[in-house]
């Protein structure tokens, strides 16, 4: 089943999505890239209804590009997320709505902050430290929550807590990728229809790039 994750760390956002394209019970493809590079510092992972996803993602990609051509500067991640949200919200109340769920990860060159937006097909946006879509979200979100819960309860920070601290907004890229691996492993272990390959992309001050896990 389609699954995508994203998490923020110190100066970067990691976005990961599975690479399977399935029709019914048949796997048609296992190397599909479901993360679009919308700009030099903006990533968008998309999932949902097969036809809608590509159509909508390309629509977004072209419009974001058009903005940059017209204005000579790109939309900031927050502005891009707002525009995309509005497109989905308007589509929701049209005759045939796009059924597309998105994760927008970007690095804002104006305030030097990595930002991540969770957007669903209804047009609900929320800025979050980590996010997931699909069945994988049931496993990944609880896993990434462990850190937040340990903090809320005011648990003393011990060395062993590093093992418990699955999400850390101050983590280095290596630590962030390790956390992502934990999410992927958890999904592989517990989800019946788990994807076996993921594409992982990172955005930071130097722009977007693909990384191998």
């Amino acid at each position, binding site marked *: 089943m389609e699954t995508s994750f994203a998490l923020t760390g110190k100066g970067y956002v990691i976005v990961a999505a599975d690479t399977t394209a399935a029709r019914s019970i048949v796997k048609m493809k296992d190397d599909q890239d479901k993360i679009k590079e919308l700009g030099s510092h903006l990533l968008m992972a998309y999932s949902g209804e097969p036809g809608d996803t590509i159509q909508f993602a390309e629509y977004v990609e072209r419009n974001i590009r058009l903005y940059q051509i017209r204005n000579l500067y790109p939309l900031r991640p927050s502005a891009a997320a707002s525009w995309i949200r*509005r497109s989905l*919200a308007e589509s*929701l109340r049209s005759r045939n709505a796009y059924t597309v769920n998105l994760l927008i990860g970007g690095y804002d060159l104006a305030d030097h902050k990595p930002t991540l937006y969770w957007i*669903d097909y209804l047009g*609900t946006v*929320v800025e979050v430290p980590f996010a997931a879509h699909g069945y994988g*979200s049931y496993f990944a*979100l609880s896993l990434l929550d462990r850190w937040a819960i340990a903090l809320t309860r005011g648990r003393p920070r011990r060395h062993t807590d590093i093992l418990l601290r699955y999400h850390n907004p101050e983590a280095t890229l290596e630590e962030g990728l390790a956390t992502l691996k934990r999410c992927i492993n958890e999904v592989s272990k517990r989800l019946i229809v788990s994807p076996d390959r993921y594409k992982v992309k990172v955005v930071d001050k130097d722009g977007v790039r693909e990384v191998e896990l």
Partner: protein
Amino acid sequence: MVGKDCVAIASDLRLGTQALGISSNFQRVPVSHFSRVCPSLTICQVFPITDRLYVGLPGLGTDVTTLYERFRYRVNMYTIKEEREIHPETFTHMVSSTLYEHRFGPYFIEPVVAGLSKLPTGGLKPFIAAMDLIGCINFAKDFVVAGTASSKLYGVAEGLWEPDLEPEDLFETISQTLLNAVDRDAFSGWGAVVHVITKDRVISRTLKARMD
């Protein structure tokens, strides 16, 4: 909730799809915020409209954002054209007619308005109102509630609220009401915010709430 020369508005902070919590801190707007959940994807947020006027928008997440953007646009246009701040009563009717425009395909939001309205004498009068999703206004004199925990909020508010509470007492009353109601609602909670609007300032506090 209405107090003596003050009003309070409060909300929880959860954003979730049914039983799955997505965010406990839906923050985008300067100063203040949001809250919680219902049929498919819901939250409620409390937004400042003017210095003495706040609106809470509990319901479907996408409509919370859409409506807030519409109200922000219409209030800005009003302020520019009229060269004065909008009154709580006027704003309430603006919200109501916006909702009624979509009578047969509504926004899934039940707004709550709280503010201090100016009297001709120059004094300030507490004002609260709530609406259903098609804009039917309830001008209450005591308190209004909305959202997935509305029946629970009614029960506690009915028991705790009394007339002419001072700002600090009103804060305690609205906080206890909200916290105890959302603790019995599976779709609400995950933090809370309270704003007490008084003559000369707005007291905004984030409450320590159960996170389970």
